[in-house]
């Protein structure tokens, strides 16, 4: 076919894609480079690209003068709890919706799908009234409880478990295993890939979550990383660019690392939830 004509055209595609890639990555590179510049250099006009002098002062301030180790821990704990909850409750209901016949199944699944579309802004005011009245404002449970069982986890696990062979479940039933036992000993052990995907996606979503933690964490000690960074960036530290960029590095680099190591699971998850 048009082999000869394909090559130069492909070269143009590579040039365009590479330019795009530079635009996608450059802000992150500049973030890291600027975070190790001394104050005077960060605000220099015109800006420098490579740091003339490398300093870790910004990180030292974040981790010793400011409370970033605590915010980091808060973010980790909330994300870990949310991840565990979504994996456990998501696979439970996901299995029921995928493999069991019961009255109310369609309604329940419809409910899960509807919930996928509810914006967080609709629920946060009554949720705040609720958490205040049950004494959960400014607590870590107050931050993770509302996100413990999300529709996305149910949906993803249902999609995955639907694809598992019915024969194994039937065989276990013939052997006299109870339904809950089948879930625990037959189905769950086969869910590894889906659990990995759901776990990673939920962790990332929780790590980046902003509106609810901003509302429920009134006390500085309970800030998560995005809340702390956002409030610093609009508060009295608004012009301390080096410090803020170092804060952005602390928020962003862990998830970029997780993503680069586990990206296959994430891409798979997007495929699993139904594109294709």
């Amino acid at each position, binding site marked *: *076919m048009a082999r000869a004509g394909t090559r130069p*055209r*492909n070269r143009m*595609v*590579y040039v*365009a*894609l590479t330019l795009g*890639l530079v635009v*996608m990555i450059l*802000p992150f590179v*500049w*973030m890291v480079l600027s975070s190790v510049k001394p104050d005077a250099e960060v605000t220099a006009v015109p*800006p420098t690209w490579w740091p003339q002098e490398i300093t870790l002062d910004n990180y030292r301030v974040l981790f010793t003068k400011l409370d970033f180790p605590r915010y980091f821990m808060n973010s980790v704990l909330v994300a870990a709890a949310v991840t565990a909850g979504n994996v456990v409750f998501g696979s*439970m*209901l996901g299995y*029921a919706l*995928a*493999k*069991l*016949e*019961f009255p109310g*199944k369609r309604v329940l699944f419809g409910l899960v*799908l509807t*919930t996928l*579309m*509810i*914006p967080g802004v*609709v*629920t*946060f005011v009554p949720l705040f*009234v*609720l958490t205040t009245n049950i004494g959960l404002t400014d607590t870590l449970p107050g931050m993770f409880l*509302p996100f*413990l*069982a999300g529709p996305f986890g*149910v*949906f993803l696990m249902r999609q995955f478990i639907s694809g598992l062979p019915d024969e194994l479940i039937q065989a276990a*039933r013939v052997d006299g295993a109870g339904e*809950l036992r089948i*879930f625990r000993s037959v189905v769950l052990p086969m869910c590894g890939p889906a659990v990995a995907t759901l776990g990673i996606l939920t962790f990332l979503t929780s790590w*980046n979550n*902003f*509106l609810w933690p*901003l*509302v429920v964490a009134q006390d500085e000690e309970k800030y998560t990383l*995005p809340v702390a*960074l*956002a409030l610093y*960036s*609009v508060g009295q530290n608004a012009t301390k660019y080096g410090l803020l*960029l170092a804060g*952005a590095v602390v*928020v*962003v680099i862990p*998830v*970029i690392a997780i*993503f680069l190591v586990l*990206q296959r699971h994430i891409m798979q998850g997007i495929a699993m939830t*139904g*594109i294709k």
Partner: protein
Amino acid sequence: MAVSTVSRPTAPVGTPPRHVDPTRRQQAVAAWVLALPFLVLFLVFTAGPVLASLGMSFTDIRSTDMRTPFAVGFVGVENYARLLADPLFQKVMLNTFLYLVLGVPLTMALALAAAVGLNRITFLRGLFRVGYYLPVVTSIVAVSVVWKFLLRDEGGLLNAVLALVGINGPAWLDSTTLALPSLVVMSSWRNLGSLMIIFLAGLQTIPTEVNEATEVDGASAWQRFRHVTLPMLRPTLLFGAVITSIGYLQFFEEAFVMTKGGPLDSTRSVTFFTYDQFGFGNYGLAAAASYLLFLAVVVFTFVQFRFLGERKER
């Protein structure tokens, strides 16, 4: 993305037998036991608040009523009437509309361009895919901090690059006309990766024979894209448009960090307004504002279900 496989029945749904079968009853009991934790959490933290929010939007509840949320006055649609007559709310509705009509086409065009490019290559495709997707996994707050720095008038990276070609870049985020478009560009940069993955998957379902056949017929690359690729990709594009719209309708974090809603409220969105009213203690008004936004989201969700229903018929 989500939901498309729903239409595919997974287990044969036989006609339910009239007599009570013991294994069926066991299954039903087990199913509800498995559903219970989710249901309880769902009722308390989602369904309850969704209804409570609707209820609150018809009352004069304020932060001072926090401990007695049921002893507040019913005011009918007064909150809604107040909102619609409020010039600030009209402004944030307009801004949210602008985020939608600027952000959705831009994000989709960039994502489609990237997807078409990736679909043409095999060598290094994985690297490009990861690179373009990277911003999607990062915190909006963090990338907003980075972009605020990058878009600075003096000493910002963008204006420094523009200066190289002799352009004197403006103060992007201090201008009432440029701030909102600047936030849209930054959002498109962050969000295009997930749409790109969806579009790429859609492109890969178009058989190569179709393109080869039109190539033999002498159609140019643009003609093939316009008359073969785009129509075949239509369901995927429509779906992408809907989920992107729902995202832009809830625009908030970028404006919170980069412009604080300014200058002169030119970047304040409906979600931002709702958060502000909550901060002022006007819970009833905040709930009403959030419900108007919810209404907009429901309209787009309806469009999505219409579209999914369409696919089901095939």
